[in-house]
């Protein structure tokens, strides 16, 4: 029976329904940056993905290379994006600014997802992209599983008393100091980071003598293009390194786990933890 209370409830319901903007999940999303490519592939429905950037296909750089192989590829060129006519474009912090401005001027919605320096940033980016795609729950699930794995590792390494010294040593003597993903990952996995203790901040250079004096037990590398040769890479074969690590080979943790902050950081941390044995 149409009472006044019923009528008021109907009006209220209608009002609520009408006042909430219709935020339907975008149906065509293009990504022009490797890091957003990977998040897109992890969080979106297949039907939502309009295009990923070319780097997403490269197995050395992209964690999601296989998954990316089915989708149209873009080179971050305006004409390609016009053809795709996406509802949403995901760009990275280092995507060319003029490109982003131009796309916005042409009326496209461009969301910039910045680079991450730590795991908190990874979580924030996952949430942001998941929200943009209309799949917030998926984002939370991804974060939860990542957190679980990280906590498991942290728990195990907390139980051991010794924290051995390690170092990321890259071609040309580059290393990851304080406030880098590698630093945090080493810490969770139960290592001490020689670079951080040698006052290297961010990504910087460490001298061979400093390295030797610090006596790291394990060297890690995440070098791009293994198997090729250059003077930069030859440094990694300096005989002194072998001696100081008592013959323990340099462990390579692929480039693709670090280049973009993403849930694959858990894989990297697990690998680092395993190296302690």
């Amino acid at each position: 029976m149409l009472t006044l209370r019923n009528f008021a409830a109907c009006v209220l319901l209608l009002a609520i329904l009408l006042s909430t903007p219709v935020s339907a999940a975008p149906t065509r999303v293009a990504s022009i940056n490797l890091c957003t490519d990977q998040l897109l592939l992890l969080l979106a429905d297949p039907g939502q993905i309009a295009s990923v950037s070319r780097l997403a296909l490269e197995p050395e750089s992209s964690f999601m290379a296989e998954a990316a192989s089915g989708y149209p590829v873009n080179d971050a060129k305006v004409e390609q994006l016009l053809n795709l006519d996406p509802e949403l474009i995901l760009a990275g912090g280092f995507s060319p600014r003029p490109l982003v401005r131009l796309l916005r001027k042409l009326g496209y919605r461009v969301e910039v997802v910045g680079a991450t320096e730590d795991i908190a940033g990874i979580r924030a980016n996952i949430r942001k992209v998941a929200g943009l795609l209309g799949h917030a729950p998926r984002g939370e699930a991804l974060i939860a599983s990542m957190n679980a794995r990280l906590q498991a590792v942290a728990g195990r390494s907390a139980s051991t008393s010794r924290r051995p010294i390690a170092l990321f040593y890259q071609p040309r003597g580059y290393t990851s100091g304080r406030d880098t993903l590698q630093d945090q990952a080493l810490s969770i996995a139960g290592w001490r980071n020689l670079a951080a203790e040698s006052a290297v901040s961010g990504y910087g250079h460490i001298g061979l003598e400093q390295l030797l004096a610090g006596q790291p037990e394990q060297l890690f590398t995440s070098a791009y293009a293994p198997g090729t040769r250059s003077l930069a890479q030859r440094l990694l074969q300096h005989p002194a390194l072998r001696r100081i690590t008592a013959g323990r080979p340099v462990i390579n943790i692929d480039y693709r786990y670090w280049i973009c902050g993403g849930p694959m950081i858990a894989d990297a941390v697990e690998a680092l933890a395993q190296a302690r044995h």
Partner: protein
Amino acid sequence: MPEQRGRWLEGLLALLLATLFITSLFIGSNPLPLWQAAVDSLGQDPTVISLILTEVRLPRALIALFAGATLGLCGAAMQGLLRNPLASPGLVGSSSGAALGAVLMIYFGSGSWFQVPLGGILGSLGATLLVYLLAGRQAGSVTLILAGVAVNSLALAVISLLLNLAPSPYAVQEVVLWMLGSISDLSLQDFSILLPGTLLGWLLLVGTGRSLDALTLGEETARSMGVELTRLRWRIFIAVALAVGSAVSVTGSIGFIGLVVPHLMRPLVGFLPGRLLPLSALGGAILLLAADISVRLLPAGTDVKVGVITALVGAPFFLYLVIRSRRWQP
């Protein structure tokens, strides 16, 4: 008599060289108890300090010594042979040719240890011969410089091209290392790569002093005095290729030492080429060691290559020479 004075000078330079060598071992990012490190290195188990001494500082000092001596000696030899005070391994293409050969071997070769110096040696010989052919036998300064510029530009262009095409993504930025030269982060292995060719080259150059002195009088007169000119030329070219080729394949093309050192020695012992050979070797080693020490005294974090220092000092000196060289051209 200049003879006795020269011998005294050699002793003094040798002393200076030894001092710089030892000093070089003291310099690094950490203070090192040198005596303790030396003692430890003789023991069974290498300690950290002995490792730093034998694997980091010692190779660096040795390479600076041998590469510097090579460049000085070959500069003096080339100046004597070409009768031109502007000749030097850098100018006549020996260095950049060596770099080209080494680059080819390192980035595209199969990686066996002898390939790299071999590439350097062959590249050096090829480039030197090319400059010699272009400039001709009686080349004046201008012709020699032009021929050298041509060959050096060609070598640099090919090196840049090769590095761009190389499979390694780090290769492109290494042009600087090859064309300016650097002796940081080298190992005893690198020293053993440099050594054979260098010693062979030096051996060949020893004993050419007399013939170079005779050449002061011109090719014909030298011939009449018993100098076998063609043989002398080949001997010096091959010696320079062996020594400079091996050195550059390890350190890159360090410039200006071969040019500057003989000129620094001339006011002290006169102009006879034979006299200048051993002194230029000593002077070259001293100069490169000094440059390397000064590079390491710069604040940590700056990564200046030793070739930058030699260029900063050498290039103005070279300009000064070009202007002054008119004075004694025949």
